[in-house]
């Protein structure tokens, strides 16, 4: 029986320690000082810059880049953090190719945008590695706010509330705060435990207590929080995983669990991965899972998506990244049955699909791909169960919490933001904006009502 890289079925230790280290190092190397200045010089300092408009947190991108070019990386970092306290992580995980860099005038002009994401990382890394803090807490207001969920939305909200002098308690369901930053993104996008370092950097402002292992609906109840605190912010993200609706569903693993396990692993060689892996889905999660399976030493990794390339939620950059890492992406294939023999996955049966008008239909023709491991990555869902028992129901829409333009839910004194809220594209940077803006709304309310009261 083969061992090592070509071991059959699920196996760990497919690669050498050096290969694991190499495969999971930084996707993009950080800029050196000189590289950053040269790249910054490419920025035209546009008037009413399109990049700034495209940024969900409205970072003043031309200004922060100009600050880099004038050897003022700390000023640059402050420009970023003023709008986005998680600017360090966003610099790593933002799909800049569909946001700021997509509309950069140099992308329009020459197909080579200013590398805004990498420049943002340069500035924020400089400030964070030196431990420079730009914000001080305002004098205590005596008000207490509960934040449910320690992910990007919750952290951004907590930081802004703390700045305004409110006392914040963050309730996090998992063992560590950080949310998807800690558990939900590919390891090569956040190396050296950056997510926890960022949590420490954000909470260093003071006035933020984090209680981990606290699940809403199990350990804490919304009604109690609403009663005990002056305001509540809900930013618990998406707890559920969409089902394949295929036979043998149980044989398929959740891509999000695989990604989380990988991120928490201290020994990548201990992680088992199939020799042949199939990932069902077409978004970032599918790409993150597929690429990392490949990087763990899987021989064949195939993403199967039920629609065409142009329909994939994963950006073209992500698709190209997957292809470059050796992942095969196949389109117009929908899962029909996960094949399991003797408790082990042996393959997956898929049906070809096509569009009839706007409706996706199966063609009746099928295909079987041999696989030792099948991941499902066809989206996540909001689990409303935790809200139950809150006495007063919170209105939802499209299966997620409904909020108004200030982040207020239908329940008085309760705000929400991030992936658990309907609308948007479930991006980290959108969650940060939502958390920040909800904090401002909460602050206005706690400071004396006004329009948000």
């Amino acid at each position, binding site marked *: 029986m083969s061992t090592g890289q070509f071991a059959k079925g699920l196996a760990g230790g497919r690669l050498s320690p050096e290969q694991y280290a190499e495969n999971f190092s930084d996707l993009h190397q950080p800029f050196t000082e*000189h590289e950053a*200045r*040269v790249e*910054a*010089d490419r920025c*035209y*300092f*546009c*008037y*009413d*810059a*399109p990049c700034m408009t495209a940024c969900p947190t409205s970072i003043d991108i031309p200004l922060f880049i100009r600050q880099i*070019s004038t050897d003022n990386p700390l000023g640059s970092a402050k420009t970023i953090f003023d709008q986005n306290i998680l600017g360090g992580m966003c610099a790593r995980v933002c799909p800049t190719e569909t946001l700021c860099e997509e509309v950069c*005038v*140099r992308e*329009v*002009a020459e197909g080579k945008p200013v590398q805004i994401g990498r420049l943002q990382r340069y500035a924020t890394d400089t400030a964070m590695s030196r431990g420079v803090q730009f914000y001080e807490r305002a004098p205590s207001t005596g008000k207490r706010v509960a934040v449910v969920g320690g992910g990007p939305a919750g952290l951004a909200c907590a930081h802004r509330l703390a700045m305004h002098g409110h006392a914040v308690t963050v309730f996090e369901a998992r063992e560590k705060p950080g949310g998807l930053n800690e558990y939900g993104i590919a390891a090569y996008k956040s190396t050296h435990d950056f997510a926890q370092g960022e949590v420490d950097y954000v909470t260093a402002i003071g006035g933020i207590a984090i209680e981990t292992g606290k699940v809403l609906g199990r350990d804490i109840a919304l009604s109690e929080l609403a009663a005990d605190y002056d305001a509540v912010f809900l930013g618990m993200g998406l707890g559920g995983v969409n089902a394949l609706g295929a036979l043998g569903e149980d044989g398929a693993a959740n891509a999000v669990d695989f990604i989380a396990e990988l991120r928490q692993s201290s020994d990548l060689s201990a992680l088992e991965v199939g020799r042949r892996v199939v990932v069902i889905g077409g978004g970032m999660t599918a790409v993150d899972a597929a690429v990392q399976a490949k990087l763990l030493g899987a021989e064949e990794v195939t993403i199967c998506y039920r629609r065409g390339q142009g329909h994939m939620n994963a950006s073209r950059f992500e698709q190209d990244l997957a292809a470059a890492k050796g992942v095969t992406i196949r389109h117009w294939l929908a899962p029909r049955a996960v094949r399991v023999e003797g408790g082990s996955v042996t393959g997956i049966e898929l049906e070809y699909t096509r569009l009839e008008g706007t409706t996706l239909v199966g063609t009746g023709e099928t295909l079987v791909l041999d696989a030792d491991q099948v991941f499902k990555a066809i989206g996540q869902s909001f689990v409303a169960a935790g809200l139950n028992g809150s006495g007063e129901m919170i209105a939802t829409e499209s299966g997620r919490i409904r909020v108004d333009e200030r982040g207020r839910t239908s329940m008085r004194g309760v705000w929400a933001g991030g992936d658990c809220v309907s609308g948007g594209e479930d991006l980290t940077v959108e969650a940060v904006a939502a958390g920040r803006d909800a904090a401002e709304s909460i602050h206005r309310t706690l400071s004396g009502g006004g329009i948000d009261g």
Partner: protein
Amino acid sequence: MADLSNRFAGIKSPNPFWLASAPPTDKAYNVERAFKAGWGGVVWKTLGEEGPPVVNVNGPRYGAIWGADRRLLGLNNIELITDRALQTNLREIKQIKRDWPDRAVVVSIMVPCEEESWKAILPLVEETGADGIELNFGCPHGMSERGMGSAVGQVPEYVEMVARWCKQYSRMPVITKLTPNITDIRKPARAAFAGGSDAVSLINTINSITAVNIDTFSPEPSIDGKGSHGGYCGPAVKPIAMSMVSEIARDAEMRGKPISGIGGVTTWRDAVEFMALGAGNVQVCTAAMTYGFRIVEEMISGLSAYMDEKGFASLDDIIGRAVPNVTDWQYLNLNYVTKARINQDLCISCGRCHIACEDTSHQAITSSVDGKRMFMVKDDECVGCNLCVNVCPVEDCITMEPLAAGALDERTGQRVPDRYANWTTHPNNPMARVNEPAE
């Protein structure tokens, strides 16, 4: 192929590219390499009088300013004239001239402003067989504190006097190198010719401090925490140098006199521009110090291709060709009306033209049209200043288009007149020369 051969103040060289008197021409080793690379001539680094060698600082001699990718834009130096023994230099000059008879070898000289000093050194230089001498009246640092270099160049009477000595005690062609650290470059130039100089060369370097270290507060280059103004050169000084060359070229007293153009010449195009403004040849230093001697290959091939394309047979077709077009402001045509035009197909919508015009000029460019991001010139506000063209990052995206005679200038509400008219006859000019009717 065009003929690049050059005859400057009686000195022949195969092309008009000389290396200026500076570190690249301090010794036979460098000059040999330069000639192998193809340089048409050299001006040997300045010789001083016989005696104890010149002493240079032992710390940094150069300061610089750079573009973002460390492209060297301007260089300054506090190096003095040659610090090698006079006899060594003379021996090497003689040998080089013997080995490279077709190349121009000119020797730069700087000795105290006394007749005896010049009288002593001139025969020694002449004996080498050098093609000519260049009087260093330009160095702004160090030697000027001892009454030499720019200290001479800044006093036209001294310039004339020394030039006269040189013509009196030598048969060699005399080129007087001028300092730009003066208000009116024509004064020392006229003095040089009055003293018998065969030619002038300019510019020498400009007084400068390239940077201040804002941690130690020492000027750069820093010598143990202190700095001294040095001579500035390189691409940054080219516009200043070209203006000074043109001032001499179009001066009534000096029209047609040989000028060797110096100051930021980096490419063949720079050389063409200098020559068009009246320079008979060019001297190069910083570009060679930045990239090495091989750049002359590009210069030769670029100049040659340009001349072929234009059908120019010799350098005489270029030299001075732009001089008639250099004039005083008062003679510029006030009836030449231009408007900026933005090519929307080329526009990348950076908005720099808008904000430059809006914040700092004439509010003549939109930022949106019908609610859409779009940059268009408002002809009723545009004064034709050209700022938008200069700040636009896309070449040829914005152009200045002249209005035809008879067209309406929406800004003034006037039709563009069909004739040339300048300030000297403008009604707003209290000094306007009114053409009195004949009696």
